């Protein structure tokens, strides 16, 4: 019997009114894989993340994490079974400091009443805070942990969100455009950092537009277009795939024609 994949999305359907945003989508993310989820704008990538993380209920199909069916679990319980995510637009808590945002990521691990009622905000050298600071350091975030997040540069906030998502000790980490808005140096650092944590056994599912980042990080890729899965295979083969070329090139051809028209 083959090993269960870390994430199995099986015949998932989602409709908003008359619009089908996920149309019988099935794919597996194998244990320990680094997989990319790509597609043109409006393909339903973020929607797929929202379905997996429970923001919206699915209308059909099944989602399972490591063999456990999770699509009936409420959103807040999915992080507890090992599923953690970041957001396309940074969703850090604006009035929490850097360390507080990161420590919020530990929330599911504080299961006992004692750990919920321990004054973590006062324990400078406490276990929780040390863990959070350690992760910040590993990710190469060199800012005052007690500073406000709202004043920090975009790239730093983006990385803090990844660190926050990591704090729950997930088995599957889903990142929604982690490299967007980062400069090339930051992108390379992020890629190295993610490779490092993947070596510890973490499974990664990444929505990303930056194809060089995808090629660098992810060995496997699934492609969505208009809510349908059009490709599922190695990242190397994605650019040679007929359906993918059509989905992307269709728009590119229009862009080229426009460019030519303007030039003429």
């Amino acid at each position, binding site marked *: 019997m083959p090993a269960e994949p870390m994430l199995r999305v099986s015949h998932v359907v989602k409709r908003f009114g008359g619009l089908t945003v996920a149309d019988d989508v099935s794919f597996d993310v194998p244990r320990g894989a680094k997989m990319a989820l790509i597609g043109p704008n409006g393909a339903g990538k973020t929607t797929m993340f929202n379905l997996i993380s429970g923001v919206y209920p699915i209308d059909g199909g099944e989602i399972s994490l490591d063999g456990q069916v999770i699509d009936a679990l409420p959103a807040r319980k999915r992080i507890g079974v090992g599923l953690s995510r970041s957001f396309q637009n940074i969703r850090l808590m604006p009035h929490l400091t850097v360390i507080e945002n990161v*420590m919020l990521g530990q929330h599911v691990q504080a299961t006992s009443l004692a750990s919920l009622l321990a004054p973590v905000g006062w324990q400078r050298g406490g276990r929780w805070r040390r863990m959070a600071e350690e992760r910040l350091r590993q990710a190469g975030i060199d800012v005052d942990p007690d500073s406000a997040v709202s004043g920090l540069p975009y790239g730093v906030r983006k990385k803090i969100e990844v660190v926050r998502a990591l704090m729950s000790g997930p088995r599957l980490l889903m990142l929604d455009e982690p490299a967007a808005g980062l400069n090339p140096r930051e992108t390379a650092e992020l890629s190295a950092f993610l490779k490092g944590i993947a070596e510890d056994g973490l499974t990664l599912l990444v929505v990303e537009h930056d194809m060089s980042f995808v090629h660098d990080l992810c060995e496997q890729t699934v492609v969505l277009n208009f809510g349908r899965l059009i490709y599922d295979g190695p990242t190397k083969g994605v650019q040679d795939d007929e359906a993918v070329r059509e989905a992307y090139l269709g728009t590119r051809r229009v862009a080229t024609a426009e460019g030519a028209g303007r030039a003429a």
Partner: protein
Amino acid sequence: MSGYMAGIVAILCINLIFAYAIFVTAAAGQLNLGGAGFQAIGAYAAAYASSVLMQPVWITIPAAMAITALVGFLISFPVLRTRGVYMVLATFAFAEVVAGFLLRSTTFGGAIGMVVPDHVGVPVLIACAVGVTLLVFYLMATRVGLAMRAIHDDEPVSTIMGVNVRAVQVATFTLAGALAGLSGALYAHHFSFVEAQYFNALLSIYVLLFVLIGGTQTAWGPLVGSLFFTLIPELLRVGGSWRYVVFGVAIVLMMAIRPEGIVTRQLVARLSPRNWLTRRKTVLGERHAG
């Protein structure tokens, strides 16, 4: 302490406890414009237990708190179904129903009010206010406090982070009920008299203003807000209606200049001596590294 000072300190203590009641829900993102309703229930429960049931203070006050906590717990379920403007209106309506009931009820003296036999002095009020302040400071330093602030900032993301948003909100409403009940019971026992007219819409408005002007991000907010509102008019020594005009102007200016309240999380971080030292180090470190 002069009688005048004692009077100010007494009302400051009661207002502070009341403000913390409203703060705990506001810190978790829920605006309660019906504070007077909870306080009235606490005051009348204590008054009834004291004057009719002849119970001593150490029973009347905890009993009042238990009743208002239960009311807060029960009312949280319908109220938490509402959002935004609706929640403000629902809590406001709740307070009006309570005031209307108390005004009509012959059991609770109707418009005449009730005399409360046992007196509680200023030292007890101060002790309670200090206790509640420390309790809320402690709460805000815990993971529950962190979760409350997270819910205030972004409810959907808090859910994704595994926070049981509903449980936290119900808990804050229950705690708010208990604290408002305590402030009401202390009011009844200190002033030895309760009347429904005191617990009016304006009181609910004032206490919410204490909290929002003080700031909802840290436990310092209600403390600063209550002090500001209780002491500024005394210090300015303006009489009668001018006092309220000054109030109003202060509120409007405050919202224009410091819309997040007087005390923000950032301000606390900046003023903390320990953080100030570490920040110096970090800045220096960065400069050397750069």
